[in-house]
């Protein structure tokens, strides 16, 4: 029975491939093709659902061995990345739950998305996402889980940018993907450290070896995976991305940010329970971040007046509680909490549009009186504690500024030092220059330039000649005069400017980072 597990992610993946290829090459398209697309996607996820259920049944009857290996994906030296799956316990339960929810949402979308412009695109992405999520929960090694993790993030990107002609949607999609990429970097680092210290990237091996790890190693691995989990499950300081992600169509919001994808972070933590249990620090971090997010989401949620924002903040708050439970050691509770929350939130998101329809003529309930009396708290809550602008100010702006400075440096300094394209630069570009040259005004004093060259060697020769000439002209012929003082002053200005720019916070931070990197 174990071998069936391969088919569970493969079914939606092949559905995605068929729909994607068919749509790309024009076999499936338009309104007539809608039923074909919907059928393919619907049948595939239903099959996955049945397979997952039979796997669960077989597990209950004791027919499963608990794992299944289907060959090797990549081998390099001792790094062996197999294609293996875990077919027991929490993994299968989640696979069953998620495939049922995904099947529901796909069924819901068949009618909901009817006659939408990107119908086929939507089902392609949803099928791809289903495959990714099922791979994520079933994979027996870290790289397999990471593949699911990334593909899920990618489909989230495309569904946020579903209405891609709206600039806000496109900008939010990019922002969300890049934010998640920070978590992905943590995940990759975690994989690398696991391989370096445990020598294997199988989850079971890591959990079995957790006892042999020193507490520092366990903490490092646990913290790397926590960063990934925090980013995926929208914990502080990554919480704002969840609000931005609401640009997509409702069914995708339901399945990504209500029911399935946001829980991936909690799943990862529960999966790594043995490693976390060897690290008090990582447990404390989980608890603190979870609690902070729960409080944050609750306070901000109090002032929200639109249904999607309220739901999203409720979701991140509940996820925060799950992290808190993990951090306090109530693993079983967190697992149940995850499952229950997925079901409830999926329902709430799916009914949100009809809810809006029903309350169309009624006033939204005003903000709670407690909140409206506390003016500062109210503003802070309304502004979501300025978290987004703060991250902009702390991270995005300095990076952009650094990029801008480096770009200038590259164009004006590195490029010049390495030798520019001589003929184009030295050509006469305007009529005035031509006249100047004919009349012989030589305002740019080009008479000094005897030697001309380009490239490093050419320029070097030219400069040497120019410097010698200048030296002779200014010092030997004219004596030390006013020019020297002027040059000195100019040099001072340049040095001053350099110092000022170096003292900008972004450079200070950069230097500190570089020093730290060298130190470690």
């Amino acid at each position, binding site marked *: 029975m174990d071998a069936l597990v391969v088919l569970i992610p493969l079914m939606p993946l092949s559905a995605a491939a068929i729909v994607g290829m068919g749509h790309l090459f024009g076999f499936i398209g338009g309104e007539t093709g809608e039923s074909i697309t919907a059928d393919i996607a619907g049948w595939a996820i239903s099959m996955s659902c049945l397979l997952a259920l039979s796997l669960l049944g077989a597990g209950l009857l004791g027919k499963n061995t608990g794992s299944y290996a289907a060959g090797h*994906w990549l081998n390099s030296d001792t790094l062996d990345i197999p294609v293996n799956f875990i077919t027991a316990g929490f993994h299968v339960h989640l696979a069953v739950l998620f495939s049922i929810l995904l099947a529901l949402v796909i069924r819901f979308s068949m009618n909901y998305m009817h006659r939408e412009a990107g119908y086929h695109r939507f089902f392609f992405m949803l099928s791809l996402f289903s495959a990714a999520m099922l791979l994520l929960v079933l994979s027996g090694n870290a790289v397999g889980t990471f*593949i699911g993790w990334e593909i899920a993030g990618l489909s989230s990107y495309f569904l946020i940018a579903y209405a891609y002609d709206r600039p806000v949607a496109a900008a939010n999609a*990019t922002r969300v*993907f890049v934010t998640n*990429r920070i978590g992905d970097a943590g995940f990759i680092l975690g994989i*690398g450290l696991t*391989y370096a210290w445990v020598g294997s990237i199988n989850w079971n091996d890591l959990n079995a070896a957790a006892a042999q790890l020193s507490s520092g190693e366990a903490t490092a691995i646990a913290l790397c995976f926590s960063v990934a989990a925090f980013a995926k499950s929208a914990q502080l300081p990554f919480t704002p991305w969840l609000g931005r992600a609401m640009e997509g169509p409702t069914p995708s919001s339901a399945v990504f940010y209500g029911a399935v994808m946001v829980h991936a972070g909690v799943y990862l933590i529960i999966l790594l329970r043995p490693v976390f249990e060897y690290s008090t620090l990582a447990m404390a971090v989980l608890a603190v971040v979870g609690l902070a997010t729960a409080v944050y989401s609750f306070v901000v949620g109090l002032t929200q007046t639109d249904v999607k924002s309220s739901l999203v903040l409720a979701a991140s708050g509940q996820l925060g509680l799950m992290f808190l439970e993990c951090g306090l050691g109530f693993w079983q509770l967190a697992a149940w909490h995850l499952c229950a929350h997925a079901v409830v939130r999926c329902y709430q998101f799916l009914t949100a549009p009809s809810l809006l329809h029903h309350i169309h003529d009624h006033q939204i309930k005003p903000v709670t009186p407690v909140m409206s009396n506390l003016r500062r708290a109210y503003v802070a809550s309304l502004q979501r504690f300025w978290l987004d602008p703060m991250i902009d100010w702390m991270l995005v702006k300095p990076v952009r500024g650094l990029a801008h400075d480096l770009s200038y440096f590259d164009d004006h300094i590195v490029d010049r030092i390495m030798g520019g394209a001589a*003929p184009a630069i030295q050509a006469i570009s305007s009529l005035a220059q031509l006249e100047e040259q004919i009349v012989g005004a030589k305002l740019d004093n080009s008479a000094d330039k005897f030697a001309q060259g380009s*490239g490093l060697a050419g320029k070097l020769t030219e400069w040497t000649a120019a410097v010698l000439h200048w030296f002779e002209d200014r010092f030997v012929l004219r004596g030390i005069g006013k020019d020297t003082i002027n040059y000195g002053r100019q040099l001072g200005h340049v040095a001053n400017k350099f110092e000022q720019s170096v003292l900008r916070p972004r450079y200070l931070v950069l230097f500190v980072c570089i020093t730290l990197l060298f130190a470690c």
Partner: protein
Amino acid sequence: MNNASFPILSLLVLLPLSGAIAVTVIRNIQLAKNIALLVAALELIATLTVVQLFNADIGTGFQLVERYAWIPGLNIEYLLGVDGISVLFLPMSALLTLMVIVASWNSVQTMPRLHLALLLALEGVTIGVFSALDMALFFLFWELTLPPIFFLIGLWGIGSERRGAAIKYTLFMLFGGVPLLFAIIILAINHATAVGGSIPQDLSFSLPVLLATALPDNLQGLIFILLLLGFAVKAPLVPFHTWLPTVAMEGPTQMTALLTGLKLGVFGIIRFTLPLAPSAAVQYSWVLGIFGAITLVYSALIALQQTNLRRLLAYASVSHVGLVIVGVASLNMQGIQGAIFQLLNFTMVAGSLMLVAGFIQHRLGSTEAIHLGGLAKVMPHLACFYFLFALASLGLPGTSGFPAELLLIVSAILAHPSISIAALIGAILSAAYMLSFTRRAFFGPITRTSVKQVQDLRPRELTLLCVSALLILGFGFFPNSVLKINKTTAEAWLNRLMDQPVLTSGDEGFEQ
């Protein structure tokens, strides 16, 4: 050493060269185009035959070797051969050239025969660079890549300063050639001194012989620096990279696709720099790593600032070279295998992205973000392929970029943990620059009438991109198909470096 019964490598070099001559001689343009296509296709088949003939299980030494005396007075030989590192570059170069020829089928209107002839000639010498085993012969092929590229940029460039860009490129490459030549001469003389012979008779330029000759410690550092400098210009590594953005802006996109796709410089570093100066390579691997890390982060940051797709791709390509160098400097199996994998990837990913940029340029006359906007709506096919290639370039699972990048990052974590942080930052930045350009060019409302009327990919272009898309997905799903070909050679390469007696100077502390 495994000698070839049939001189197939020479055939690979000569076939495109003779094709180039044929194309120049033939008057009929259509016939010339067909012949060029035929030659490129035959070349691809021949290179695939080489991969078939190649035995991946023989780790040490070169295969399909052809040896003829060339300049007997100086002991310079005509020596060709392949090993697991170079063998896959041959079909990739052939495929990319074929793609470039198909992509420029109608877009090159002036002097099309000369254009095709130069492309074929470039293909021939590039294959020569990958398969030459005699240093002098290698240097000849290396420098012979310059004239075709010079004329391709200068004559068919799309920028107003294409002549300047062509000169800039050539000067940079000539500058890189000087240290290379010095290193080759020093190595040859060292061999003569080592065997105790006299200078002109006992010089040796053959790579297998030079690899067997021990290099004294005082020369190790010098040779390492010279060879590194020579190849760093071509790779390119910061600060020698400034020719690439210029060429990308001024040169024709097909040419840039070849330049960003075929990373001859990094190949040179793997093939010559490290094995020829092994103890210096081990001692200074961290310097190389830092060099790579700086290149990686520096160009990724600059790429964030770019508004033109071609320039962005140029910086992205430099940034990826940085990551490959980090992998090479890690001196472990994951690093070297990931580096070769990533270099092969470039041929498809960077080359195809540049070709896509060329398609946009050809239709709209610009790849500047402000002139685009909303392309996904009017060119859905092109947008699909663009996304696939862009995602492969930022290493998303499912594409061939992922296994390569994973190997490189894991190798960095194993060897130099602090450099691996730079690699991870690079991974985040690559998503930022790629997707924020995508947002401006492909998403958003259509604002320009020229964009509104643009035509999507033609069947010819679609087929072209399908081929590389299939390869990218294929390598992504089955990375072992590539890795098993270079496994034994990579092991031998690594053993050669690591089995050296470690030098006494205590500069090893950095790695801890």
